């Protein structure tokens, strides 16, 4: 497919993007091509400049950023030098964009049909209204949405998240562009919807020969979609190559670490996060930016940026030591995260000691019943995973146990055999202390006006009578438990990365010395590499403290690495329950099978 020069649709050469007043580089020397009908996955962690690079293909930059150099060509049309009406014809005509958050991208005041028609009108598609309406109906078919008038007259808020994302894809496809840029379009969706959207994108590119750039931080997502993958780190492309080759034999240490961080649904293995985090623009070092986190680093790495080399015609790599990495030869600092399989050395009592038991719990959200007679038990030292799509009631159940559900609850929730009050104010201090809740988003669960010290002091002050020094000592201790340095105590949450914030949230929960830790989708806001590190940490903490864990997630692939038991939830009921391996290897219920099939994971040939 990629042999002939003539089928190159999009070419990017030496793209350089800077922050406007400061001149700090966001992206530097980014070059790649996309062939006809090809899907290129652009993968990188947060702050790697991947979205900035992607939007610049449409000659668009967010406020404060500026394209300082380079060239973007689509079928011979120079995009970056176009302006005014020529640029408007290119955007949406030659190349189009599918945003990350469809709910925010659609105009809430316009009906779906009107918004779609607007795109066609703007580009004077066809010659008559009838032709445009025919195209509109065709677009709806392409993205598998109903084409009837009733549906087209709906407003965006009347659609589900998956439907909204399909509408934005339909908009992007409306004028039959050559290239579409998809900017993490499934991040906000749960696995089933994500699988459907990915299917749609794949079918569209295959059937209409449209090329696509798919931006994501999750290699597992592009594994089932992309033909080639480009890995981006700190604003530079570090490796690019065909998907299967990259998955089985990556040359760049960073690519290898990214792969090691992906949870595998089929085999049990420990996840390995990448130490540290991707440097933000302006904090990047000279030379290869990955150097501080790299096991393979040598002196040259910190000072000189490696040249763009081509091991074979289809691949490009920027690493001084790619030959060593390929062969696994030469000196390294420590073992790479592909080592031993997941060994569960957590204390595991066989005696049935129930810590939390939930019996026949029915709960309402406002007036609607969302949990229908759910029963579950959490045993001492064990980790129970609650899995399900959004709206399955898994978070509601977790919040009922934590006493954070402000609506009607029937049934009994017991802690160590004693019934718990419905809401936290009515519970005793010991009960509040025993159950600690870690929230989904570390961006929302930490008060931005408090330092880490103040955040940690709160539970310690409430649950323990410690003097100043004792409190300080305890804070340093819990920070150590989550592998953070005591020097972070004076920082505010905004001075921390997402992974560090989540560690602080975990430390705050640990400070109470709980018996039960409820983790509500604690990794869903984090990059895959950071997710792996957090999972590592949670497993380690359970080994050390023997705390019981309730792990709520929509990602089935994760639970092998963290949980002993799993309860699969659907529409407010537990549909399947059992040991993790038993359920995942031999699901008894169709719904579980469906969830398993939809979960993105590594391609079969590159399992470790």
């Amino acid at each position, binding site marked *: 497919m990629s042999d002939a020069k003539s089928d190159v649709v999009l070419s990017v050469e030496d793209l350089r993007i800077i922050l406007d007043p400061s001149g700090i580089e966001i992206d530097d020397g980014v070059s790649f091509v996309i062939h006809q009908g090809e899907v290129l996955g652009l993968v990188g962690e947060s702050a790697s400049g991947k979205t900035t690079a992607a939007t610049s293909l449409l000659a668009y930059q967010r406020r404060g950023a500026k394209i300082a150099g380079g060239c973007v060509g689509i079928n011979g049309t120079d995009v970056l030098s176009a302006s005014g009406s020529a640029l408007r014809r290119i955007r949406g005509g030659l190349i189009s964009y599918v945003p990350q958050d469809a709910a925010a991208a659609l105009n809430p005041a316009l009906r779906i049909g009107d918004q779609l028609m607007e795109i066609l009108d703007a580009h004077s598609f066809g010659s008559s209204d009838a032709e445009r309406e025919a195209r509109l109906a065709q677009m709806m078919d392409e993205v598998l949405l109903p084409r009837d008038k009733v549906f087209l007259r709906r407003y965006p808020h009347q659609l589900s998240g998956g439907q909204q994302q399909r509408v934005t894809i339909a908009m992007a496809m409306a004028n039959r562009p050559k290239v579409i840029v998809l900017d993490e379009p499934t991040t906000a969706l749960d696995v089933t919807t994500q699988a459907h959207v990915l299917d749609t994108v794949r079918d569209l590119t295959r059937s209409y020969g449209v090329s696509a750039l798919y931006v994501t931080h999750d290699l597992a997502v592009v594994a089932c979609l992309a033909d080639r993958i480009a890995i981006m780190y700190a604003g530079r492309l570090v490796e690019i190559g065909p998907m299967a080759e990259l998955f089985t034999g990556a040359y760049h240490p960073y690519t290898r670490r990214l792969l090691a961080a992906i949870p595998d649904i089929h085999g049990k293995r420990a996840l390995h996060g990448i*130490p540290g985090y991707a440097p933000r623009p302006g904090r990047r070092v000279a030379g290869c930016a990955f150097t*501080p986190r790299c096991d393979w680093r040598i002196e040259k790495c910190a000072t000189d940026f490696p040249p763009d080399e081509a091991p074979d015609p289809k691949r490009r790599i920027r690493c001084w030591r790619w030959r060593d990495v390929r062969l696994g030869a030469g000196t390294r600092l420590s073992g790479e995260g592909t080592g031993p399989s997941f060994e569960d050395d957590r204390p595991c009592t066989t005696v049935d000691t129930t810590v939390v038991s939930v019996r026949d719990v029915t709960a309402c959200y406002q007036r609607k019943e969302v949990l229908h007679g759910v029963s579950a038990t959490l045993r001492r030292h064990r980790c129970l995973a609650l899995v399900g799509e959004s709206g399955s009631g898994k978070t509601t159940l977790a919040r009922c146990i*934590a006493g954070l559900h402000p609506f009607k609850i029937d049934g009994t929730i017991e802690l160590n055999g004693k019934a718990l009050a419905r809401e936290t104010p009515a519970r005793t201090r010991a009960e*509040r202390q025993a159950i600690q*809740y870690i929230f989904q988003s570390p961006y*929302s669960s930490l008060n931005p006006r408090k330092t880490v010290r103040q955040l940690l002091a709160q539970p310690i002050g409430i649950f323990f009578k410690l003097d100043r020094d004792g409190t300080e000592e305890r804070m340093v201790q819990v920070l150590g438990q989550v592998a953070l340095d005591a020097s972070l105590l004076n920082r505010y949450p905004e*001075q921390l990365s997402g992974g560090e914030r989540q560690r602080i949230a975990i430390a705050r929960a640990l400070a109470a010395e709980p018996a039960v830790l409820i983790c509500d989708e604690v990794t869903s806001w984090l990059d895959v590499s950071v997710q792996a590190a957090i999972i590592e*940490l949670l497993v380690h903490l359970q080994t050390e403290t023997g705390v019981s864990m309730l792990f709520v997630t929509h990602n089935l692939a994760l639970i092998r690495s963290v949980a002993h038991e799993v309860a699969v939830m659907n529409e407010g009921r537990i549909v399947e329950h059992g040991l993790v391996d038993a359920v995942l290897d031999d699901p008894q219920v169709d719904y579980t099978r469906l969830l398993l099939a939809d979960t993105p994971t590594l391609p079969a040939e590159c399992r470790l």
Partner: protein
Amino acid sequence: MSVGGGATIDPREVVAPVPKRRREWVTTVVEAWHLRRTKIGFVMFIALLAVALFGRFVAPYSPTEFVGPPFSLPTASYWLGTDFLGRDVLTRVLYGGLSVFVLGISATLIGMVLGVSLGLISGYARRWVDESIMRMLDVVLAFPSVVLAMLFVSILGPRLWLIVLMVGISHMPRIARVTRAATVELVARDFVKAAAAVGVPRRTILLFEVLPNISSPLLVEFGLRLTYSIIMIAALSFIGLGMQPPAADWGLMINENRIAIVVQPWAVVAPVILIGALTVSANLMADGLSRAMMGIDRDTALS
């Protein structure tokens, strides 16, 4: 350590220097100060405050002293002429600002305390507590504020504390609305739930979790309400419900001397200019603060 998170943070990154971080309202003030409108407003405000505070020490006469025939035009001995009783206008202008400042600022403070408390409670409690507080405030809002003040002043007599209180109360609904809107947004954030989950009392949550996060909009609101306070106090003085003769007060002076505005305009124009300048200056500062808070003129700086 292979399973543990011990190796996951590079100590070099941890000890990296961190830019000094300020409290939110300080950041807003500093950013507002970069705007020209804020500087102009601030300089005007300080100048007027200086006139109000120290003007009396340089005044040539006593404010109640008769220095010449009523409504004399400016001469060398009385630079702004005389008022309807023949008192020196310049002297009365120099004396008459303090009451405007003191009453305006205290009325605004009263309004802020009442409004912010009700807004916080209303935004956090939701449901029927929220409804009843907000509907009660709607009733207050339904009265034109000057009419409300007139009603009480005409019943209880023109007492200064009453005027200040009534102006404060007339601000209360709007301040409460701003506070409530900001609070509702914050209460939806998980850190408030996290505090509630470990059993932090509601009062502590409101004062120490929520309030510090809404200091910027409240600062802007204070500036804006100060403008309205000054206008209202001056207006109440003008209609005779504020400061009582023979006190020197800018609002009162306009009323006393307006009959002769054609004959001796200075007795009216001077206090009008000063009240106008004061409201403009307060407004410029409030506007600068709100622009800084919303980031309208912010440099597109790096995060």
